[in-house]
């Protein structure tokens, strides 16, 4: 079996080229691969396009906003470009207002489904979400069974950074509760999937085949979070 286990986050993200599209899961801070993001920050790749639910929060923890602030991102594709509260100005908002970073705002369900389509080999799909709004302007419309839909396209990644609960040596992954969020579709949509895992990596065969959330065929590199890693 191919060895997918890497000894450090720095080794796991080494060689990630400038200009890559990188997918970052996480919702409310849960399932967010903070250790891999910190390693990418140290690694320094530039002109990246990020795919993420938001463009970074405003706390002292490492998240997508850390890469934005460091000038590593040229564009964010996400469901929130504004900060969650108008009074809080994130690094992203500051740069966005000065046109120093680009953004594509996507309804959250469409964002998830576009990644699922990329992973599932679907060339495009029609959704009723966003019809009648500014975000549907310029998109192809089609009435299906009396209801208007817009055409949406698959969203591929070069890399997905994943935060998992358990992994085996083949790369099979399990998530715990709402940690799952975007992790599954991002692992499917990206060419190279890199995982930080909260538990020791177990031998193939130790995870129940009925309860694998991401099959190992989608997973390329796995690192166990060390005791001094970023846990929350």
């Amino acid at each position, binding site marked *: 079996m191919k060895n997918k286990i890497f000894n450090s986050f720095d080794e796991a993200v080494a060689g990630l080229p400038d200009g890559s599209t990188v997918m970052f899961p996480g919702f*409310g801070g849960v399932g967010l691969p903070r250790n891999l993001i910190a390693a990418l920050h140290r690694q320094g790749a530039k002109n990246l396009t990020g795919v993420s639910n938001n463009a970074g929060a405003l706390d002292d923890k490492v998240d997508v906003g850390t890469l934005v602030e460091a000038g590593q991102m040229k564009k964010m594709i996400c469901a*929130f470009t504004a900060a969650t509260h108008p009074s809080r100005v994130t690094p992203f908002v500051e740069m966005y*207002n000065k046109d120093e970073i680009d953004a594509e*705002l996507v309804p959250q369900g469409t964002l*998830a489904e576009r990644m699922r389509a990329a992973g599932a080999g679907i060339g495009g799909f029609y959704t009723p979400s966003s019809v009648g709004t500014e975000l549907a302007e310029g998109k192809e419309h089609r009435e299906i069974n009396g209801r208007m839909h817009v055409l949406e396209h698959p969203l591929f990644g070069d890399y997905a950074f994943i935060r998992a609960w358990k992994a085996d040596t083949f790369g099979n992954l399990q*998530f715990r*509760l*709402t940690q799952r969020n975007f992790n599954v579709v991002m692992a499917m949509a990206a060419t190279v999937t890199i995982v930080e895992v909260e538990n020791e990596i177990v031998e193939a065969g130790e995870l129940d085949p009925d309860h694998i959330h991401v099959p190992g065929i989608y997973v390329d590199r796995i690192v166990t979070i060390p005791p001094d890693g970023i846990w*929350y």
Partner: protein
Amino acid sequence: MAEKPKLERQAMCDRLAMEFQDEWIVNLGVGMPTLCSNYVDPSRDIITHSENGVIGYGPLAEEGKEDGHLVNAGGQFVTAQPGMSILHHADSFAVIRGGMVDVTVMGAYEVAENGDFANWRIPSRKGGGIGGAMDLAACAKRVFIAMEHNTREGGPKLLSRCTLPITAPGVVKLLATDLGLFEITPEGFVLREHAPGWNPEEIQELTDAKLIIPPDLKEFRFRA
């Protein structure tokens, strides 16, 4: 007049929650609507759904008893309930787009008499925050809104037409503000219940849209 007490946010959310029916799948948006979860009629059998992939979660976790892996759409720690299940994000929005959600409760900047509403973008600011609101608004069976009746500056929020970019066209069915409960009908806003001490004329004065005042107008119902 401005000195008269208005409705508390909790009362507004309670009032909307009183409309939830048995077996309804209920999605509560970020902010004020999460207050709805503080009141669920114990005789009612509500199923909660959160866009980040939880079906059947329970009340907010007590401090010190949070499970770091379990949050709601607002990122708040919630509790597990028997029968809860977890989905990934694409499957969670399959539930939403598939029409399984009976009601979604959201906040808003503006609501119009044609059922349009706006809650994701202020034109003076670049960008916005859609989250799952557009999917929910377009696909849930009913959209309920909880918001203050007026802006901080005293401007109207119940309009004949929205001025901000909308979240979805023609979907709002019921609206609770700090001045009352409003149904949106093909004819426009119907004032169903007024806040105690407020008469329809006073409410109309603070409203841009023309209010329909039905003969059976009632006083606002509070939680029992």
